[in-house]
């Protein structure tokens, strides 16, 4: 069998066996509608409650502050639009950053059409939002600040606690998209003063199609999915029982095993960076040097195009990604790297490698070996040379 190496764990992960085992009976044994009053329904409702407790415990929230959604994108949309609408009587100004996930950016754009004003904060070359610039952007009519905890392309960790404190001092609601942070970073919504937070299951070895929005008790939010009385009347739609049960288990495991896997992935990541830095010339590691999660490495290979690198690696069975997967198919360069001020050539050659629990040293060795060959091959095809870049003859 040909070798397969999956280094796209920031896009999605497999469902772990422990999670799958927990989910299986929900399909054909505990299949009741968790909203039904009879025993079948109560049984399912009990499982959903337990899942909600597990999510709450993982982030130090209360169970009644957790609302299940169809995923991170719905959670982001709900948070941004629902909070903006609920507080529009106070003001119509929102602050976010230029490097948010498209779910946040597009939700903000949609609000702009309704008359809300949005400030998109710039980031520095490491991908960090400046607290000073955030404070400077706050106005009397600012009602919401939404800054992601960890960027999905470069892995930079924002100063969430400081942002939460700033928001609180100014009486502004603080939402964070923690989809990429959850499972890699310890999150405590009380300590970090987070009012609302988006989570997703499939990035932490849970099933796809399920996520959650945490909303601190006392924070107002308008519904965006009207329907039945599910999720305490906040979000209509029959509960995806197997999904939320899997998500609950995945969240529990993520927190339980975080120290172990973080350490393992960090040493693999450091080894990978050492290897490619030693073996491949003209590369740049993007993102913050230290303030970043362990599982994401974003590398710019000069003189080559990232899509060409991605496909060549794919020919060898190695899966990586370029930019945000949601933008695949669009020719626009990564807005995250562009916002960080990278030269267009560095953006063009940027590839994201994201490691997971099952990544091995052998996977890294194989990837580095192929990467050396591929970059050399593509640079031979490229008319650009390092020496003659300014005025290639």
């Amino acid at each position: 069998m040909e070798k397969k190496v999956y280094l796209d764990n920031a896009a999605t992960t497999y469902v772990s066996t422990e999670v799958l085992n927990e989910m299986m009976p929900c399909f054909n044994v505990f299949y009741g509608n968790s909203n039904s009053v009879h025993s079948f329904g109560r049984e399912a409702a009990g499982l959903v409650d337990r899942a909600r407790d597990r999510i709450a415990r993982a982030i130090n929230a209360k169970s009644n502050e957790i609302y299940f959604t169809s995923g991170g994108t719905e959670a982001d949309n709900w948070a941004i639009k629902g909070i903006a609408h609920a507080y529009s009587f106070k003001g119509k100004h929102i602050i976010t950053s230029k490097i948010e996930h498209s779910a946040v950016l597009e939700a903000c754009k949609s609000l702009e059409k309704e008359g809300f004003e949005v400030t998109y904060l710039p980031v520095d070359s490491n991908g960090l939002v400046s607290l000073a610039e955030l404070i400077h952007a706050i106005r009397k009519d600012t009602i919401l600040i939404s800054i992601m905890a960890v960027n999905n392309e470069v892995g930079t960790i924002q100063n969430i606690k400081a942002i939460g404190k700033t928001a609180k001092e100014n009486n502004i609601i603080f939402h964070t998209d923690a989809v990429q942070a959850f499972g890699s970073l310890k999150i405590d919504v009380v300590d970090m003063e987070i009012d609302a937070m988006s989570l997703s299951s499939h990035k932490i070895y849970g099933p796809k199609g399920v996520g959650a929005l945490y909303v601190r008790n006392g924070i107002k939010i308008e519904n965006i999915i009207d329907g039945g009385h599910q999720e305490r009347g906040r979000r209509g739609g029959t509960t995806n029982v197997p999904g939320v049960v899997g998500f609950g288990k995945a969240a529990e495991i993520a927190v339980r095993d975080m120290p172990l896997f973080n350490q393992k992935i960090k040493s693999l990541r450091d080894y990978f960076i050492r290897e490619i830095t030693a073996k491949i010339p003209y590369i740049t590691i993007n993102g913050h040097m230290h303030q970043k999660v362990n599982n994401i490495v974003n590398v710019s290979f000069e003189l080559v195009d990232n899509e060409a690198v991605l496909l060549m690696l794919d020919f060898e069975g190695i899966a990586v990604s370029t930019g945000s997967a949601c933008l695949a198919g669009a020719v626009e360069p990564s807005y995250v790297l562009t916002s960080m001020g990278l030269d267009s050539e560095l953006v063009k050659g940027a590839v994201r490698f994201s490691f997971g629990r099952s990544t091995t040293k052998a996977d890294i060795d194989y990837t580095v070996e192929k990467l050396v060959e591929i970059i050399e091959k593509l640079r031979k095809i490229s008319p650009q040379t390092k020496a003659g870049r300014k005025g290639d003859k």
Partner: protein
Amino acid sequence: MYNLKVLEIFKNPKNVGTVKGANGVAKVENNACGDIMKIYIKVSEEGIIEDAKFKTYGCPAAIASTSVATELIKGKTVEEANLISSEQILQILGELPEEKNYCPILAEETIKAVIEDYYKKKEKEEKSI
């Protein structure tokens, strides 16, 4: 997103490199995406393109398009080569994702540019005689 034909050509592109004693060279850049195509040709005294090679900085579609472009112009007269259209290149590739359709167009532009360069060099040479 790419068909098998494009993948195959990208995996094993034909005519990569430079031509020794080339009498036509051109480099064309797409400012929007930063792709750069460079074609080298050697034209015989009879006006036939004896050799054509390329170097491309760009996506798989750009590399495949220049590979096809050099295959198409090889053995043709410069007049014939000048008539090659991006549609012909696209036809050989089968199809491309919509946002990559500029690649064959850029390849056609590079063919036209390299032939223009050949004519310019020839004119200069004739003047100097």
